[in-house]
């Protein structure tokens, strides 16, 4: 049988394998009766989902089938087209430009720091020592607003770069703000305030102010980590964990539905409960995000928070709740019979699917091994028995940690050990009887 067919049957997550709406409905009804016990907490979402599934999913299914047929006929899968990146060029241009700006800003900061340390007495002189003031004799108009200087409109100098401007074009940096700017953001408050000695401020031009402010803004924003970010990253982490569990779940579900004995049904059930618990957790998290208080200056945050909430509930509804339920014991029995008889009841579609799968697995050379539940009591201190006990306790531990891959491989180990042990015993008894 072709690889494609094999894939089609095995994939349990998408319900494509249920070939008719009827089967799908029964499947969904089962799915929901199961889920009710597990997902009481998210009942509201679930209730809606249940109804929608019953009505729409079968249509969707039909549609999906048709679409698949059509796609098979008409279209090959589409890779994303070519792209062209300008990122390197962009960064190169930016680097050249920013280097200049950064050095300039740093120069300003150094001057500002020195200005703050000046004493009040002969300040003007010291100020001019720090930066040369532009000679104003030939400047007749303010360079930024072009009003001509006279007795009323007087020349002023920027204390940071020494350029000339009129009073209305001047900006004033209070000592406190200046203090904040020269102090590294992290250690602010740690430094002693010197502002008390001077109540006035530093006159600067717009250009210098811009440079200082944008640096300050960038620094502050780097430090800021609003609560929504923490909650959201928590949400995403939980989602990743769930994804892990869901992948494991579908793998186990697959294997069990095939009648393999690698995984235990009880483990599947408990994993399902775990998924449900986590679903509840992210549901709560998203509600928390949606109800975070919002600064009235940022109305977008409201939209953002509601969108996150909505997206999460869609994710739970359409993805987590649509995982197929574990097979019941009866079904499991049927599957096993199907495997041995290769002649399952064709009225029910699920066994039929599985029958086909069974054939596939047989041709791939997989042979079932019966689980031997007979436990040998550790009468004597046989190292083999000891090891078996160890393995059993490992299995318990792995199960508790939901490491079902490990459970499966340990079970395999245990089986081998048992096999060897039985052989030994037989040999012993054989020797005895000799």
């Amino acid at each position, binding site marked *: 049988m072709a690889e494609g067919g094999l894939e089609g049957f095995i994939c349990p997550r998408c319900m494509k394998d249920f070939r008719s709406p009827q089967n799908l409905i029964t499947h969904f009804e089962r799915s929901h009766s199961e889920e009710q016990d597990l997902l009481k907490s998210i009942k509201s979402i679930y209730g809606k989902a249940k*109804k*929608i599934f*019953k*009505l*729409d999913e079968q*249509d*969707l299914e*039909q*549609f*999906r089938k*048709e*679409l698949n047929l*059509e796609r098979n*006929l*008409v*279209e*090959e*899968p*589409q*890779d*994303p*087209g*070519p*792209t*062209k*990146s*300008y*990122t390197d*060029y*962009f*960064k*190169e*241009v*930016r680097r050249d*430009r*920013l280097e200049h*700006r950064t050095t300039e800003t740093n120069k300003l900061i150094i001057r500002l720091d020195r200005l703050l340390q000046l004493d009040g007495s002969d300040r003007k002189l010291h100020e001019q020592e720090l930066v040369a003031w532009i000679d104003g004799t030939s400047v007749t108009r303010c360079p930024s607003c072009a009003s001509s200087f006279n007795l009323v409109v007087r020349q002023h100098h920027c204390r940071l770069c020494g350029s000339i401007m009129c009073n209305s074009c001047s900006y004033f940096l209070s000592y406190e703000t200046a203090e904040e700017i020269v102090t590294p953001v992290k250690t602010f408050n740690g430094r002693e305030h010197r502002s008390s000695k001077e109540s006035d401020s530093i006159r600067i031009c717009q250009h210098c102010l811009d440079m200082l402010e*944008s640096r300050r*803004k960038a620094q502050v*924003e780097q430090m*800021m*980590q*609003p609560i*929504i*970010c923490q909650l*959201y990253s928590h949400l*995403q982490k939980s989602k990743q964990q769930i994804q892990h569990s869901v992948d494991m779940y579908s793998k186990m579900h697959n294997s069990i539905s095939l009648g393999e004995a690698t995984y235990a049904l009880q483990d599947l059930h408990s994993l399902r409960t775990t998924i449900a618990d986590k679903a509840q957790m992210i549901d709560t998290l998203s509600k928390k995000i949606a109800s975070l208080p919002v600064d009235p*200056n*940022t*109305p*977008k*945050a409201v*939209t*953002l928070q509601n*969108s*996150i909430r*909505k*997206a999460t509930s*869609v*994710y739970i509804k359409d993805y987590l709740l649509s995982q197929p339920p574990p097979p019941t014991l009866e079904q499991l029995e049927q599957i096993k019979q199907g495997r041995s008889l290769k002649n399952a009841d064709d009225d029910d579609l699920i066994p039929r699917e599985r029958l086909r799968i069974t054939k596939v697995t047989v041709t791939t050379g997989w042979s079932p091994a019966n689980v031997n539940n007979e436990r040998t009591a550790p009468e004597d201190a046989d190292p083999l028995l000891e090891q078996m006990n160890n393995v059993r306790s490992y299995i318990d531990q792995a199960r508790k940690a939901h490491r079902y891959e490990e459970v499966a491989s340990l079970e395999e180990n245990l089986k081998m050990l048992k096999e060897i042990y039985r052989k030994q015993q037989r040999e012993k008894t054989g020797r005895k009887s000799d």
Partner: protein
Amino acid sequence: MNVIAAVKAYVNKMTEESEPGMKVLLMDKETTSIISMVYGQSEIQQKEVFLLERIDSPNYANSTGLRYLKCLVFLRPTQQNIQALCAELRNPKYGAYYIYFSNIIAKADIKILAEHDEQEVVKEVQEFYMDYLAVNPHLFSIGLPTCMLSGNWNPSALQRTVQGIVSVLLSLRKCPTIRYQANSDPCKILGQRIDEVINKESSLFSFGQSGHSLLLILDRRDDPMTPLLNQWTYQAMVHELLTINNNRVNLSNVPGIPKEMTEVVLSAEQDGFYARNIFMNYGEIGTSIKQLMDQFQTKAKSHQKIESIADMKNFVEAYPQFKKLSGNVAKHVTVVGELSSMVNKYNLLDVSEVEQEISSQADHSAHLQSVKKLINNDKVREIDAAKLVMLYALRYQNHSNNDVKSLMSILKKRGVSDSLLKNTVNILEYAGSHARQSDLFNVENAVKITKRFIKGLSGVDNVYTQHKPVLHETLEELMKGRLKEQLYPYIGNGYNNGRYQDIIIFIVGGATYEESLTVHSFNKINSPSVNVLLGGTTIHNSASFLLEVEQAMRNVERTHT
């Protein structure tokens, strides 16, 4: 070749490259349409995009941002956008920027942008070629309501169309041979411009399979009949009677419409019922809807009988819980209900029957009679009456007993608006026999007519879908390798190996949903050996087509009528 999948693939790439985190998507008017054609809001939210913003909205510049968001920027490479983006980067509202342009951008513009990124917020700058509207997997539109101005290309529309088609070719990784309709200058100019770009950007177009794909550029004027006809398949019918604009249908004019239904979204990507019925005819949709309603009914254990579409409407309204559950079905019931009421109110079945006969059979006196009868009927809308006269005028333009004059006087007497009357003249000027390639060769024309005549005799099962667009025959001939080089020459040193695997048809002056159906059926039969993709400057219905005609013929001297 699936344009929807191509655009989706790019969007996915965009959302994945920016690494996990809350995201905002910043777009312009056109890129918003491009994305909304393939993804609904709830789908894009699953990709962590929680906010959608428009850079060209008047409030955007003054709005406050959220520095903890990552900003995906998806814009067309226009000068306004570059300026707006420069302003944005100077005062960034968001923490990090991933910039994607929908088409080829000048390096100088990148430099300008880089110089404005003083806070080093930009992380990526790339070109992602999706500068067109993906309507269906095999159908795209450039989104230009009109493209001709006074008989020639509107220069900005030409520029936009070249960009659009280039991005289609890139997104599908095709570097095709180009052929164009010989008698149409606009087609030739477009082909040459595309060829220039392909040659200039040869490194981008190095897919190395040019022999197998073809871009065939056609002129709407070669088939003016198709956009004038009433349609009976779902998508085409909705567009003809209610108008689909970027997958949205405005129902606000429908009397008594519930508030949530004033605008409905019809997207085959998100709506299973629509996807299944998009190419179904009017009768079949009715059946599908009835089936769906029957399902609901049994589920509700209701004993109410559903016989007519009016009953269905009542049923849905009587069960508010259903309305909630099946917004989708309620939507289609509303749409189909509105279609059916229009069909009855305006005698569309009778109108369509005559339209179809004129378009696919030749019987002058009978057709003249039917047209006269219908345009005298008060139930028939003015536009339908005018369209009937247009069809007649186009069909029998060179017939010895042509009687357009008396039909026009009937229209005048009816009080048909001046603009419609003018358009009945315009259409002959726009696409009369002088402008059509097929009419230039009388022999071919005669064969075509007899062919149609025979078709008409051999028992047509549906009188409302007899008509086949000219595109149908063009495709057939292309398939057989018989498309004449004389009529459809090559651009550059193209060569004719006769067989193409991928065919992109582009119609200057707009495609129609009827042609989309033609292509769909053609693909169904011939896939996978041949795949056809259809595109147009827009997707026309008769109303928008008449606007195009009016625009195209503005200030053009009448020389042919």
